[in-house]
């Protein structure tokens, strides 16, 4: 168990440094020299030089980078150029809605994907199986925004069933209706790959000796499928969900932008469009860290599901 997680941490660390470096570069390319902005348009060269010295802009890049890491560790990500608020405050406000959206999407995608995949495997070769597989191939090929456009157009606008812009509040405070459409958009694209892999995994397990034993000792078919087959088929499926984390994150950025969902993805896109570099670097960093964390969690879950890995 420990080894897996240590390996993941070892891999994550250089990745994290890479992310930090990219974000640091983002601050370096600010088109105008910060010292000149602070000094004002009529400042003398000496004043600008003095400010550069004060800000540490004259020092070598590696030292500035180390400085930057120090500031990030202290939670100081700079100030937004547009709203003039601290970037860390902006992130604190947006991270909750993003997590909410992703969890909502998983709550829709995982049970549905598992159910459809298992059903297809049990009814292998029938029309139902082919139908489910056709739907899942179509789902894999669907751009996230296409599903979003259709849901907004019909469920949101024509039938006026659910709200489709913004977030009315936390789930416990009447925010559930506004979460449904964004979460469904993001969840629907994930059902296809999950169903597909579940089908393969369940088919494989159904041929295993222990399933035959379970049937031979007279267990009901439902118990065999759910407790014996599905539980073991979950292992590859969890890996897949880890691999889909990148997809989930990318999809969240698109979904948030479409539904004006006040999350980190929308914050990042807005900041890039309006050249708000401090906010953009903070948001991108948080998204990258979220991605690494999801992968770490998947590794832990993996060990929990497959007790064989717990032995040293």
């Amino acid at each position: 168990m420990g080894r897996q997680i240590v390996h993941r941490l070892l891999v994550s660390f250089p990745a994290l440094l890479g992310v930090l470096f990219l974000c640091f570069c983002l601050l370096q390319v600010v088109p105008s020299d910060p010292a000149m902005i602070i000094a004002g348009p009529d400042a003398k060269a000496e004043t600008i030089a003095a400010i550069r010295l004060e800000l540490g802009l004259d020092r070598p890049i590696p030292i500035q980078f180390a400085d930057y890491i120090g500031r990030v560790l202290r939670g100081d990500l700079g100030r937004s150029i547009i709203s003039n608020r601290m970037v860390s405050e902006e992130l604190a406000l947006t991270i909750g809605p993003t997590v909410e959206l992703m969890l909502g999407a998983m709550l829709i995608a995982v049970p549905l994907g598992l159910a459809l995949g298992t059903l297809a495997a049990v009814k292998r070769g029938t029309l139902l199986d082919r139908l489910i597989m056709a739907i899942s191939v179509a789902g894999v090929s669907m751009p996230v925004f296409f599903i979003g456009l259709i849901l907004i157009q019909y469920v949101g606008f024509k039938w006026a069933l659910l709200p489709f812009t913004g977030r009315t509040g936390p789930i416990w405070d009447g925010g559930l209706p506004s979460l449904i459409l964004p979460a469904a958009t993001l969840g629907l694209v994930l059902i296809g790959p999950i169903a597909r892999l579940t089908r393969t995994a369940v088919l494989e397990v159904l041929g295993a000796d222990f399933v035959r034993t379970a049937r031979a000792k007279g267990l009901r078919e439902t118990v065999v499928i759910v407790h014996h087959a599905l539980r073991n088929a979950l292992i590859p499926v969890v890996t897949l969900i880890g691999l889909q984390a990148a997809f989930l994150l990318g999809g969240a950025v698109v979904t948030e932008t479409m539904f004006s969902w006040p999350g980190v993805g929308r914050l990042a896109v807005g900041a890039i469009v309006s050249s708000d570099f401090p906010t953009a670097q903070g948001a991108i960093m948080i998204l990258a860290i979220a991605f690494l964390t999801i992968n770490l969690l998947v590794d832990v879950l993996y060990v929990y599901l497959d007790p064989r890995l717990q032995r040293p």
Partner: protein
Amino acid sequence: MSVETLNAAVHAEESGALGRSGALRRLARDKVAVAAALLLTSIALAAVFAPVVAPYDPYLTDLTNVMQPPTAEHWFGTDNTGRDILSRVIYGTRNTLMLGLVGVVIGGALGGVLGIWAAYYPRADGWIMRLVDVMLAFPAILIGLAVAAVAGAGLTAVVIALVVATVPDVARVARGAAVGVMGQEFMEAGRAVGVSDRTLIWRYLTLNCISTIFVFLTLRFGQIILIGSALGFLGMGAQPPTAELGMMAAQGRDFLFMAPHIATIPSCAIFVIVLAANLLGDALRDVLDPRLQQ
């Protein structure tokens, strides 16, 4: 055995999976695969010959004729500035396909070389695979956002993101295939008769891995197109008035309730392209390289 005979033997092996007798015939029997291949070919042809095929100038605005639903003159209708959507979809497909292709080709080449080096030079293996692990830790959309933030939104940002999204997986697949080829006798024979490292890598190893890499890239192509168009949708890719399918969908979003076809037709075009690519990729894999199934 002389070097010439050996080279000839390797060439026989080279034709590999793609030339394996019956593979194409089996593919031709799969009706879905044939339909997907035909569809994809005609889409690609229309994209290549866009100036000939497109009925109108994709940039010609006509303010007396805006947001028209599909008619006999404009099969896909017109957009908010009266441009012909069919012509824009054809040009947009051209740009979208081009992005995907450039991403897959550059990413495939880089990933392939990395994977084959890792298999050929055991000492580099650990380092290369660790680099690949690190690259895998970046979601493609984030790379696109970061590059767009640093260098400005544009096609370059999207291409870089697509390359980074392709390299690590290809490197893993190529390494797996190359490790298999390394164990074959002709590699040892080649080394024994003094074939140079370069020839061994390029002629013996690479040519024998290429069909596996090719099948894998076909499988990935659809996903790459989806990532590219998502970046276009977010405004990180092609800038107006250039036609690119993802960006066209994003622009049409503002008129969704008045004229839904402006956004849905480009989205639908992406869906059809990716679906055809995925179906063809699945069929190719089943016929040529069932090992890639996981």
